[in-house]
Each structure stands twice: as C-alpha cells, then as structure tokens.
C-alpha cells in the first residue's frame, strides 16, 4: 500500500489540496494492516463470524456470539482442525443489514476465512449469500428460519418449518383445539411460516380462522387483542419476532385472554422471552431441537462448559446458541474428514452426511438439501424462566427441503423455495 503514500506537495496552493492530502493520508493509514493471510501452512486457520451483537437484534445475537466463541474454544482445546488452531475473526453487524454485505466481503476477501458463519434474520442471510458465493467462501447459516434455501455454497443448520411446525401444529390441534389464529411478524419469515401453519393445520384436521401480520417495529397489539376476542380461537399461533413483539404476550395476559386460549409458537424463547415474561408466559408451548432442560450427557457437558465460561447466572441457553454450536462442529468434522480446507472437498464431505452428537442430540447433515436431520422436542414455558420438555421426536428430516432441493444432482440450483 506504500504506493499511495505520496510525499506531501511542498506548497499547497489551494485549500482543497490540503483536504485531499489529509484524506489520502487517512486512506493510506487505513490500508496499513491486515492483508490476506492465505490458508496455507501450519499457522492458525482463520474463520469468520458475523452476528448482530449490538442494536435491536442482539437479543438473539449475543447468545449466538457467545456460542461461537465457546465452540471455537472447544474445537481448539480438542486439537483444532487438521491439527491447526482456529482463529476467529468476528464482526458485529450492529443490526444493520447493510453492514452484512460489507463485513461478509471483508471476512471473505481480506481475511480470507476458511468458512463464514453468521446472519440472524433471513435478510442478513440473503445479504451474505451472494458475497460468499462470489468469493467462493463456504457459508453456514445457523439459525431457525422459514426454510427452502437451496444453494451449493450454503449450509443451513437451523430448524425449519417442516420439522418444527410439522410437530408443533398437530400437537396444538390435538391438545388445545381445532381453531387456530395466526399472528405473524410482517416479513418473510412470518409470511412464509404462516402458510406452513395453514398447511399443517389442515393436515391435522384443524383450520386457521385468521392470519394477521404485524410490522416488526409495532408493539401496540390493541387491535389484535380485540380481533382475538371477537374470533375466539382455541389456539393462537405466534410467529412474532424481536423485542417489540414481546409486548403481545404481555398485553394478551393483561387482557385475561390466557384464561381462554393457548399460545403456541416456534419463535418464543429464542430471545429469552420466557425469562423476561416469567409468570405471564406460563403454558406457552414451543418446539425446538434444543431446550436447556434436555437431559442428556452431551447437554450436561455443554452446559457445564457454558456456565464455566459465562457464569452460573447466564439466563438461559437458547436453541440458537445450540444451533451455532452444532454448525461449527459439523464444519470441523467435515474438514477433518476431508483432510483439506478446499471448499469443494469440504462441501463434498458435508454432503456425504456428516453427523455430530450435540447438546440437542444427534445432528446429521442431509447432503442433497444442505439442511440437517435432528430431534424435535416440544416444551411448555414453566413460569420459572425455563421450559418443561413434554416430548421428543428423534431424527426429524427437513421434509420440504428434501423434496424440492437436490444439490447433489443439481449443484447449480440457487434459490429459496416457497411452499
């Protein structure tokens, strides 16, 4: 970068030049550090993570970032990958989607990370994907989402509706009643999930009486409460997202509706809603691969490690955190099995069905769809900042993704399939 540092002109005749000089100097300084490290040799392997650690989305992002740090630490303590240590380069996208493009580029091109993980909302995933694809950097999206992404370069370890809602909705129809009322965040996740709810409700013999979409920034649910009282459904399916939407549960309880209808939700808990609401949340039912309360050896170890690292008063370890954990370990296993960091080799290994025994049970990559086969548990908020796990179904496949997406035979597919 030294080419840019010109000797300052001896005489600056115009003010503009001095401004320009200052700018150039600054640019030159900015270029100083951190040129691409390359992935050869025995040094540490750079890996990248982009999450929202600040801004409104950090209600999800903080736990995911904690899980990322812990996963890297765990992998390194167990000998690293290919005998080399991992070096994490992490970026905070500040809940600003525009930053994802920028940081994905920095991570892929400047830091030349071996794998890039991150993104919380679907919007951030969509921002990362083209950048990762262009720079041929393998990408993992580790968060529950609306499903259907089919892209050779992307692996989705989060739970999808064909696992989560496929379990939750029939459970609700069977146990709580046939009339469902859907309240969804008004963006892609909510819209797409709402149509899944409709599908699974019909298959289970129930029906959706009404679907209502709430802007993400809205926290006034007055009209929703009214509509609910008029419609009198048996079950309210909440596909609400983010800090503002927590107001719904509170206004619901405050209007006394928790006496007459049940809430089921595939998102409740990801942002620690049950911790915040406590009493007002009792009985809200969700379905996730992971609840902190799951009793298994890997989970006990996982929680031990977590609490040693972050303290015993950590509010609750969310499903998102476990998903991030799984993502890193799946990748590490695949690299070790492939014996190389080469992207195509790693993809091939991942597609061969890598499997990992994580805190939520065994997680196996489904090669053609780039999604995971995993357990699904149903849990009910217990009013003590946690859930009671009611039942668990093992090895649930991502049925829809398997149906529409086959990247082994059609590697050039790159789209998001919708129901």
């Amino acid at each position, binding site marked *: *970068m030294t*080419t*840019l540092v010109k000797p300052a002109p001896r*005489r*600056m005749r115009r*003010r*503009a030049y*001095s*401004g*320009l000089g*200052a*700018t150039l100097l*600054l*640019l030159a300084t*900015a*270029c100083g550090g951190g*040129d*691409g490290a390359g992935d050869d040799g025995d040094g540490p392997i750079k890996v990248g993570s982009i999450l929202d*650690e*600040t801004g409104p989305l950090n209600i999800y992002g903080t736990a995911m970032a904690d899980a990322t740090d812990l996963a890297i630490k765990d992998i390194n303590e167990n000998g690293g990958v290919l005998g080399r240590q991992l070096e994490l*380069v992490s*970026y*905070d996208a*500040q809940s*600003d*989607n*525009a*930053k994802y*493009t*920028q*940081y994905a*580029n*920095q991570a*892929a*091109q*400047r830091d030349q990370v071996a794998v890039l993980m991150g993104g919380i*909302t*679907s*919007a951030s995933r*969509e*921002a990362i*994907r*083209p*950048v990762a694809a*262009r720079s041929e950097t393998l990408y993992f999206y580790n968060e529950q989402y609306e499903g259907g992404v089919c892209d050779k370069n992307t692996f989705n370890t989060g739970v999808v509706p064909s696992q989560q809602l496929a379990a939750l909705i029939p459970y609700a129809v069977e146990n709580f009643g046939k009339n469902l009322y859907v309240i969804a965040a*008004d*963006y*892609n996740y*909510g*819209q797409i999930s709402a149509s899944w709810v409709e599908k699974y409700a019909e298959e289970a013999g129930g029906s959706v009486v009404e679907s209502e*979409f709430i*802007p*993400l*920034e809205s926290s006034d649910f007055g009209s929703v409460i009214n509509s609910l009282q008029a419609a009198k459904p048996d079950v309210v399916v909440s596909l609400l997202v983010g800090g503002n939407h927590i107001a719904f549960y509170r206004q619901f309880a405050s209007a006394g509706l928790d006496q007459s209808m049940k809430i089921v939700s595939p998102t409740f808990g990801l942002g620690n809603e049950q911790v915040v609401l406590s009493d007002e949340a009792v009985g809200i039912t969700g379905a996730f691969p992971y609840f902190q309360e799951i009793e298994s050896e890997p989970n006990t170890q996982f929680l031990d490690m977590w609490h040693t690292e972050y303290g015993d008063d950590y509010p609750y370890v969310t499903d998102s955190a476990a998903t991030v954990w799984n993502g890193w370990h799946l990748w590490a296993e695949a690299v070790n099995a492939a014996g190389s960091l080469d992207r195509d080799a790693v993809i091939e290994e991942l597609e061969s069905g890598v499997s990992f025994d994580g805190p939520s049970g065994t997680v196996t990559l489904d090669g053609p769809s780039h999604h995971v086969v995993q357990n699904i548990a149903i849990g009910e908020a217990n009013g003590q900042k946690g859930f009671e796990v009611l039942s668990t179904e093992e090895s649930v496949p991502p049925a829809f993704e398997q149906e529409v997406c086959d990247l082994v035979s059609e590697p050039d597919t790159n789209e*998001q399939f*919708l129901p």
Partner: protein
Amino acid sequence: MTGAQTMQRQSRGRRLADRLPREVAYFIAIALGALVLSQVIPDFRAYEWSLWAVYGILALSFTFVWGHAGIFSFGQAAFFGIGAYAYGVAGINLSPTTGETLSALLIGAAVAAAAAGLLGYFIFYGNVGDVYVAIITLAVTLVLLTFMSSTADPKYRVGDAPLGGYNGMAGIPPIMYGSGVALDTAEMLIFCVAAAAGIALSVRILLRRPFGRILAGVRENELRTQLLGYDVRRYKLLAFSLAGAIAGFAGGLYAAWGMFINPSVFSLQQAAMVAIWVLVGGKDSLLGAFAGVAIVQGLSSALGGSGGSWTPIVLGVVLIGVVLLLPKGVVPSIADAVSRVMRRKKPQQVPTTVLEAGQEQRSDIDLEGMLTARTGRVAAQSIRGENLTKRFGGVHALNGVDIDVPDGTVRALIGPNGAGKSTCFNLLVGRYAPTSGRVYLGDDDITKLRSDTRARRGLGIKMQVPSYYHDLSVDENMWLASYAAVPNVKGADEQAARALRWIGMQERAALPASALSHGEHQWLEIGMVVAGSPSVMLLDEPTAGMSRDETHHTVAMINAVSRYSTVVVVEHDMEFLRDLDAPVTMFHQGLVFASGSIEELRQDERVLDTYLGRGVSADVAG
C-alpha cells in the same frame, strides 16, 4: 466563411478551451488513477473503495442540495433507496434480454428524480417551511422503510422481481455492458470512481453555469432572488430533483455493487449517515463529500472489526464533537488551519472613495443600453394601485389607497412611520396580497401575479431593509440581477459590468458584498435594480445612512434613470426631496393624505400637523 464567422468560431473554440479541459483533465486523471489503483490493491480493498465511491456520490447529492441549494433534505437516503430498488427491478427484468444494466442504472436515477420531483412539488409549491422540509423528508424516508418492509408477501412483485419485504430483493444483476458479462472487482472500482468523478465534475461545471449561480442566490437570499424575477420554487424543485437523480444513480450502483438491496437503506441510520459524511467532509466542497465518506467509513470499518460494542458510542461522540467543535466540517477546518500556517493572510486593500471613482466614469455609461436591455427599447410603464387595502389581523395598514404614477415620471412618497408607505410597496411588488384593491402595471392587471412574474415584467424594487447577497461577491450580486433581465451569460456579464461602473464599484467587484459600507450597500441595491432593466423602479429609503454628498449623487443617479424608467421613491430626507423635485404623495394612517410638490406640502400646515404631531401649528403660528 466570413471573417466574422471565423472569429466567432475561434472565440468559441477558445472559450471551450478555457472551460472544458480543466474538468476533462481532472476526469481523465482520476479515471487513470483508479485504473492504476485497481491493479495494485487487493480485491477486498477495491470492493470496499467501490462502495466508498458510491457513498461519495450519495453524499455529493446531499452536499449539492444542502450546501449549494440550501435545502436541508433528510431524504437523500430515500432517493438512494428508490434508485436502488428501481435498478433492481429494471435489472432483473431487462438484463436477461439486453445483457446490460447501464439502462437500469439510468432508470434508477430517473425514477428517483421523479420521486424527488413529486415530493419536491408538494414541499416547494406548498410553501412548506424550512423546519418542515427536514421533518417531512425524514418522515417520508421512514414511511418508505415501513412500506418496503411490508412487501414480504410474494404477491408484491414487479415483473420478475419480487420486492422481498424486510429481507430485501435478491438476485440483482451487477454492472454489465451488454455482453452479459459482469464487471470484476477491479473494473467495478474503475467504473464507480469514474462515475463519481464524472458526476462531481459535472456538478462543479453546473455550479458555475447560470443555474448554479442562481441556486447560490436562492440559498443566500430567497426573497431578493424572487424579487429579481426568478421563480424560486422552480429552481428549488429542479435542484431537489437533480439531487434525487444523483442519489438514485448512486443507489443503482449500490444495488449493483452488493447485488442485493433491502429496506434498511430507508432507515434513520442511513438517512443520518449521509448528513454525517457531509458534515465531516464539509458541506460546501464537492471533494468534502468523498473525504467525509472515506473518513467516517474508514473509522467505522476500523472499529467494526475489533471495537465491537463501542462502535456506536465512538460514532456518536465523533458526531457530537464535529457538530459542537468543528461546525464547518472536519476537512475544511483542517484545510483552514493548514492554509493559515502556509500563508499569512494579508488584509485586502479596499479603495475608499467609491464616489469619485464612480463619478468620473458615470458620464460615459450607456444608461439607456442598460435600461433597455430587457425589452430592447425604452419601456417605462405606469404603475397604478386602485383602492389598495391591507389588514394584518386587526391592524389596518392600508385603507384604500389610490396611487397612479404615469410612465416615465418620478414620484416621491412621504409620511410618518407606520403610514403605510412600505406596505404599499409590498402590495405593488406582490410580496403581500391586498385584502382588497387592484394593482396595474401599464394596462395589465397584475394583482394576481406572483412577485417574480411581476419582476420579469419590469418591476424592480429596493426594499427598506437592505436585501442583497451577503456572502456573494459584489460582482455576483450584480450578475444575478443582470441575468434576470438579460438571460444569456455574455449579455449578463456586460450588463453587470456596466452597472458596476455606473455605481463606481468595479474596483470592489471581487469583495464579498458584506464587506461594503452601509451607503455602498444602498448603491449596490440601486445598481442591482437598474441592472434588472426595470420599467418601474420602487426605491424604499435609498439614501438612508448616506452622507450629504452621497445623497446628492444618488439624486443625480435617480434623475438619470428616470429618463428611461418610472421611479417611485420613499424617502424622509428633505434635502433629497428638494433635490429630486418630483411630485410628492403623502401617506398618513394608511391613506393618501396630501399630494403636490414638496414646496407646496411644506407650506401646508395640515401636513406639518400630522408630521410633527397634533396642534403644533398653533404653537408655530404663535
């Protein structure tokens, strides 16, 4: 080819040589620089700097609309976003068949310009106040955020392009020239830098053109510009739309750069970010826009990798620090400091005796040429007010005044404070609408015309409160007045030069008008009215603050002008009125109280009574 034609050709060639190469040379230099740069820096840098160039264009649009047109628009981010979405929609739909996206880029700019034009129409033709311009543009930006975020349902699509709601629009094609092959990272940097340079240099040229100079006038003094005969609303709307087009172009480039766009471009953060860049870089300089982007983005990306949670705090502190401590912007402040060190400022020598300088040359000035420049002939018109009444709330400022000044005559208005003289002027010139009554210029009823239209019909005014362009040069003040009458650069230059000589200020042409003395301001304004080639001149207290000698000269100037134009003058100075020796109309309590020559009025005890106070005549007689 005749000799004259050859000369014309040559002189045009020379003018071209004077003007073009500088910008063209800059452009070529910058583009070459980008070319070299793109070969030596790693791809991620090229990729990042492409974005800076794009953001720089966006910042530039704000510099233009705020720093040069004086409109504080929070909406540049909105037009940026609109351009980006339009590029996305057009690119997705068109590029499969055309194999290029340059047309989509232009469509992006055009759609953004149209959006800006529509919004600008509501704002500027609805006479929305300055504070509200900022809030409305901000509110519209936030409205678009909500709106675009709510298009998640797959049914919201334009052709093949789903809008995508909160997640945004994916699959946007990158820049392609026509072969269907996308630019690589290095080429993209060259393209973005060249586009930025092209736009910045074009704006630079535009600002030197009459449009840009008039914009400076609008920014400095809207009322004066209006009264010179420029339709201020139109210029503001044009500037606003142009800024929208520039922002929209940047938006299209942004979408092409990231191949992705989502509604966060409409967020408060993005809207404020634009202002921050410009604030840091300095709002007057075009280069500042790019410097601001480089500094802020450089800082932000340096912090973003490692600083983590402190980033917003650092940004906030920087922002507040700049606003409080370096209100001119970081780069201009540094540049100032540098230039202070580099060269000591010599106080400029100001010639002190304008009067004499003017006197010598005034005799051979083509006053007739100056005052016939607008229409090409002597065109003095009559001005007539019929039963003019004006109420402000409960106050009757004017109570049915009839005034008729025949063409080519001079009329003086006198009367105690609050008698309605200035209100009368304001009604004649169209600053206020009369409560009742009509105004005629020549034979035309102009009661309903806006003040700039009246000015274009030849009505010139010097108001009581000095109204000129403080921060523009004396020369530029005069030029703006001249161009309103002679709308071509050459003619206006000549007209301005004549007017400057006439008021004896050619020596001070380059000074900022604010550096003139009180009396000189009066002459400058009188000169500006004359340069506007009026058929009727209204002069409100033209000699306030002048010495005796200066007053005498002013009378001589007015008398000279009155051969070609009708003149109405409000003045209190008796000596002035005696010198002027024109018919006098006296106002009192919103009515015409008396008319006649100054000597007649001075003999009229009733006039003295009202002027000095009731009952004075008895004392005087006694």
